[in-house]
């Protein structure tokens, strides 16, 4: 008996183009598993973004449209609303990095949450701009050395990072939001559970659902994949605590 198989919603013969040990692969796989389990592959439209997340459509076997940098939630709003106007109920989700979701696209993200836009947003938070070589981003923690904060992030020079999921949680249109990590098997299963919930809430039409995934960037952190996961467990989860930040079913 087979207890695990490659998700159906991952394209045949595709191979991830991410660096060794990058959590993007894990995150996309979990999304694919959720799409399979909910049997929504044929009703799902993904919105990809700029950054390492950009090649989503090469891996995921669902309809996909690319958004300009930061605008994924606005594009997803258009896709969802257009289908609703046509009487179709489609599942629409964005897959974005933290720079895309919480820096250049923060306006679009927050306002989609405030409108209670019935879409799901997945945000990969790896604390830097990975694709361009690891520069300071909106989630870079204080003290972290990056390509553009060579002496470490400090408040006088760079200001403070954003607590993305908490900001989304206070938006009234948000029905569900959580921060998860992928550094061990327990957290991987938990991440999948929360991603699934986010999609299920969209199916029920409850509003904006959001999952922030604390992810590794071994190449730019200059750590091995295993040490990167250790860093997430020991350091990043202290700065960015995991958990469900809003769940309207429990209120």
């Amino acid at each position, binding site marked *: *008996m*087979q*207890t*695990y*198989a*490659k*998700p159906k919603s*991952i394209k045949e013969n595709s*191979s*991830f183009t*991410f*660096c*060794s*040990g*990058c*959590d*993007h*692969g*894990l995150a996309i*796989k979990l999304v694919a598993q959720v799409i399979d389990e909910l049997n929504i592959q044929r009703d799902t439209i993904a919105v990809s973004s700029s950054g390492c997340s950009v090649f989503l459509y090469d891996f995921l076997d669902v309809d996909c449209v690319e958004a300009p940098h930061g605008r994924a939630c606005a594009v997803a709003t258009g896709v969802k609303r257009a289908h609703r106007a046509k009487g179709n109920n489609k599942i629409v989700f964005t897959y974005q990095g933290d720079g895309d979701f919480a820096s250049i696209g923060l306006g679009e993200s927050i306002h989609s949450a405030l409108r209670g836009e019935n879409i799901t947003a997945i945000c990969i938070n790896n604390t830097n701009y990975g694709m361009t070589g690891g520069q300071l981003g909106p989630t870079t923690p204080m003290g972290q050395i990056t390509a553009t904060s060579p002496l470490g992030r400090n408040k006088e020079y760079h200001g403070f990072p954003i607590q993305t999921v908490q900001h989304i949680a206070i938006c009234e249109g948000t029905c569900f939001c959580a921060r998860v990590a992928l550094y*061990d*098997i327990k957290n*991987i*299963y938990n991440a999948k559970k929360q991603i699934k919930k986010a999609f299920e809430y969209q199916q029920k039409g409850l509003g904006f659902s959001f999952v922030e995934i604390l992810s590794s960037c*071994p190449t730019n952190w200059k750590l*091995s*994949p*295993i040490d990167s*996961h250790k860093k997430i467990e020991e350091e990043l989860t202290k700065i960015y605590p995991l958990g469900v930040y809003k769940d309207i079913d429990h209120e």
Partner: protein
Amino acid sequence: MAHIEINSNLCKSCYLCINACPFGLIKKSAETGKTGEYTVEFYDKEKKCTACASCAMSCPDIAITGVFK
């Protein structure tokens, strides 16, 4: 017999699966893969594998393509 299938062509030698296996059944192989590093192999002489799929779930490259009980 529980076992896993590894597609070495997809393995990027991150070794997260080695870390994930509760029984230590995955180790570096003698072969090098696409990154120039050693890929991994499944080694279960004592039939300890329970097909829990922790290794496959942890693999960021879907290089562990199947787990069987």
